[in-house]
């Protein structure tokens, strides 16, 4: 044999040329790409920390223009169009995403820093699925259980985060359009590129001008958008702090609001769990997208009787994660999205150290440039520590033990958040009982981070309100007399809660 001690996988980089990254991108208003009135921003490739492309941003006046265009499109075209016709456009957009999947995956990886494996196998195909799913609903709104012909709301103002730029755009745009609304949407400042490729797909689908408008810019533009008097519905995904501001600002305006905010998901492993697969689920729960996931399983609760063995297995598994160049097809954990986010995570890691949590990190080497962190585990992080309570939004897991199911429920629910939870047990009755007792919008049983357009997604408490996906997600974009969201009344049978 000619092999040395370790079998090193040769680099297997996806071609950056497939992304066809342009030097400069423009916002998309009223069916055309236009120069924005704001200063250009530079989007950084987190994998290298080098500039990727320039993006023209919009001014407050551009927001007015976009909202006016959306209103025009709503009253003159989109709200009058039959559901079947709207569905055709949505199917066309879905096919456009599928046709340009490889390009979109490369753009997303270059702009966001997540591994190509994830954009190729998750982000892009799931975005296409959301359009396909909602395309099917467009002519069947009367079957939602919301009356014979539920009416759209009007113009939706939407603000999305940087962790799943294309997928969040799909989550927001697809149900809004299917329900008959028009959209003004603002992507995050650090990740505007993939949605601007989507804009091209939308333009190529001949969607009537003004039905979808994409505004680039920072938080001030987002604030202008959600407070704009021409908006009928606001949907925001992002941090709890910003979500709280938005809710405060919108109080009394009569505008409908859905918020999908932070989380501190509990992943609960019982002693009878299929341990090797539970290890996989914990790894997926916190290291998928480097933990930059609002529903991340960032708190591991493991039954005391298996804790030691389980943590050994978990650490052994985390050691095998390949951290590095997001464009390499063999990379498991990519880059942190921005220098600012890296600094925020490091601040919390420091706080954890100071508060005395025992810290363990993978021994993997990190690239010399770009924003990277080693997968990290805090063992025996007590509930009072900041790392146990605050959302870290990075590849950092905290672990505590429990002895009884009641204790697990108490510890899991002891959080201001309530977005997701995972339960690992081979005992079906226990899984069902746990699901009923946990205060979280999404509960996974013997799996984690599974998304389907047909399943509602959303939170309790400081994780926000309203649902995205499934019939309940559509209801958030329809005029319903009573408030059907957050698991109420009519929708409880849809399998959301």
């Amino acid at each position: 044999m000619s092999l040395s001690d370790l079998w090193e996988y040769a680099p297997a980089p996806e071609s950056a040329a497939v992304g066809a990254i342009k030097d400069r991108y423009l916002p998309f208003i009223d069916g055309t790409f236009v120069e924005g009135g704001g200063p250009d921003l530079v989007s950084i490739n987190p994998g290298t920390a080098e500039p990727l492309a320039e993006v023209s941003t919009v001014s407050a006046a551009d927001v007015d223009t976009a909202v006016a265009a959306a209103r025009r499109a709503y009253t003159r075209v989109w709200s009058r169009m039959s559901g079947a016709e709207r569905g055709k456009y949505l199917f066309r957009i879905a096919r456009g995403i599928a046709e340009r999947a490889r390009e979109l995956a490369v753009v997303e990886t270059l702009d966001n820093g997540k591994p190509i494996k994830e954009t190729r196998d998750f982000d892009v195909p799931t975005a296409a699925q959301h359009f396909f799913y909602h395309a099917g609903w467009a002519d069947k709104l009367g079957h939602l259980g919301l009356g014979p012909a539920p009416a759209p709301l009007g113009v939706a103002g939407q603000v999305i985060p940087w962790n799943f730029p294309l997928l969040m755009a799909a989550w927001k745009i697809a149900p809004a359009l299917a329900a008959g609304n028009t959209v003004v949407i603002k992507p995050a400042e650090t990740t505007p590129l993939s949605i601007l490729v989507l804009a091209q797909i939308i333009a190529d689908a001949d969607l009537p001008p003004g039905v979808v408008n994409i505004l680039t810019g920072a938080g001030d533009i987002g604030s202008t958008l959600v407070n704009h008097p021409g908006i009928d519905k606001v949907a925001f995904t992002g941090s709890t702090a910003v979500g709280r501001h938005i809710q405060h600002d919108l109080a009394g305006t009569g505008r409908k609001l859905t918020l999908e905010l932070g989380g501190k998901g509990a992943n609960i492993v019982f002693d009878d769990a299929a341990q090797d697969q539970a290890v996989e689920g914990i790894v997926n729960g916190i290291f998928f997208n480097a933990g930059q996931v609002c529903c991340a399983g960032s708190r591991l609760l493991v039954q005391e009787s298996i804790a030691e063995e389980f943590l050994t297995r978990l650490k052994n598994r985390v050691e095998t994660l390949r951290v590095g160049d997001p464009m390499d097809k063999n990379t498991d954990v990519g880059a942190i999205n921005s220098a600012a986010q890296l600094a925020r995570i490091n601040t919390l890691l420091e706080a954890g150290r100071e508060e005395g949590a025992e810290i363990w990190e993978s021994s993997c080497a990190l690239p010399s440039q770009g924003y990277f962190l080693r997968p990290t585990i805090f063992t025996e992080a007590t509930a009072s520590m900041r790392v146990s309570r605050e959302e870290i939004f990075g590849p950092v897991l905290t672990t505590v033990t429990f002895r009884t199911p009641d204790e697990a429920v108490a510890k899991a629910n002891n959080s201001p958040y309530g977005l997701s939870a995972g339960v690992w047990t081979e005992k079906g009755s226990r899984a069902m009982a746990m699901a009923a007792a946990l205060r979280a919008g999404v509960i996974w049983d013997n799996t984690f981070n599974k998304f389907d357009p047909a399943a509602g997604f959303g939170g309790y408490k400081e994780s926000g309100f309203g649902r995205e996906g499934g019939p309940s997600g559509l209801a958030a974009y329809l005029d319903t007399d009573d408030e059907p969201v957050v698991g109420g009344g009519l929708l409880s049978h849809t399998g959301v809660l």
Partner: protein
Amino acid sequence: MSSAVTKDERPDTLRLLPPHLNDVTVDESSLRRFLHGLPGVDPVGVEERAAGLATRSIKKAAKLAAIDLAISMVDLTTLEGSDTVGKVRNLARKAMLPDPERPETPRTAAVCVYPDLVPTAVQELAGSGVKVASVATAFPSGRSSLEVKLAETRMVVEAGADEVDMVIDRGAFLAGRYGFVFDQIQAVKAACGPARLKVILETGELATYDNVRRASWLALLAGADFIKTSTGKINPAATLPVTHVMLQAVKDWYAETGQQRSVKPAGGIRTTKDAIKYLVAVNEVAGPQWLDPYYFRFGASSVLNDLVMQRRTQLEGHYWGPDYVTVD
């Protein structure tokens, strides 16, 4: 990865079980309690992990290294009723010199034949370093008396087989008669003498991953040198998720006892692409120390031709047709 093919004596010849595992095998009910106390295997999770690892992209030097390693791990097998002395001779020559155009190509690990053809294989392979493996114990069903199984084992070992591939009695295993299966494996192991014992679980008949894990531990407890997936006579034969479960079992066994045992998927591995997916699983599930022909084998025949063709492609930059490698 060391030059393992030539290295015969490994430290795990010392086979004393740790005291806590000795108790496990004292009687049928202890064995049952132990095997049923092993953590379950979630099928969705293990299949997802296997599918995920199968997307690894192995290119360039890593691919060539994998091809050479895979060739050195092949148990080149012929187990047909129509086998002839001539066919086994041809197979033996192919095992020693898989690519006559490129004599530096590694030889395979072993040639695997039916008992009556062991003397032929021994004669052809003498001094080559390629092992002779023989199936035994009423292969492929395992439905015979212990006396017959032991007699057949002794016969092949006396004829010069270095390795014995036995089958477990799946009927007994599925009926929950673990002690019966355990005793048979132990007895065959004793009859093997210096030969290494591969225990075929026939995972296609065990049906569940929980059963695969239990059968793996049962065989390891009884002294199996290798746990092997399949006879090749049942569909499905080896699959990636099943091999994941078995690789996890030998890894756990190593953590428990300090003894490093071996794994052999067999049947259904036909292409270089398949073989590399298995090597990735070995590397990332069991660990790089299993990337060694002593600890991992492929039970296969047609895969060797594809490996040889892909090896030439890697070295020469263009593809070769199947007419440029020998038909078995």
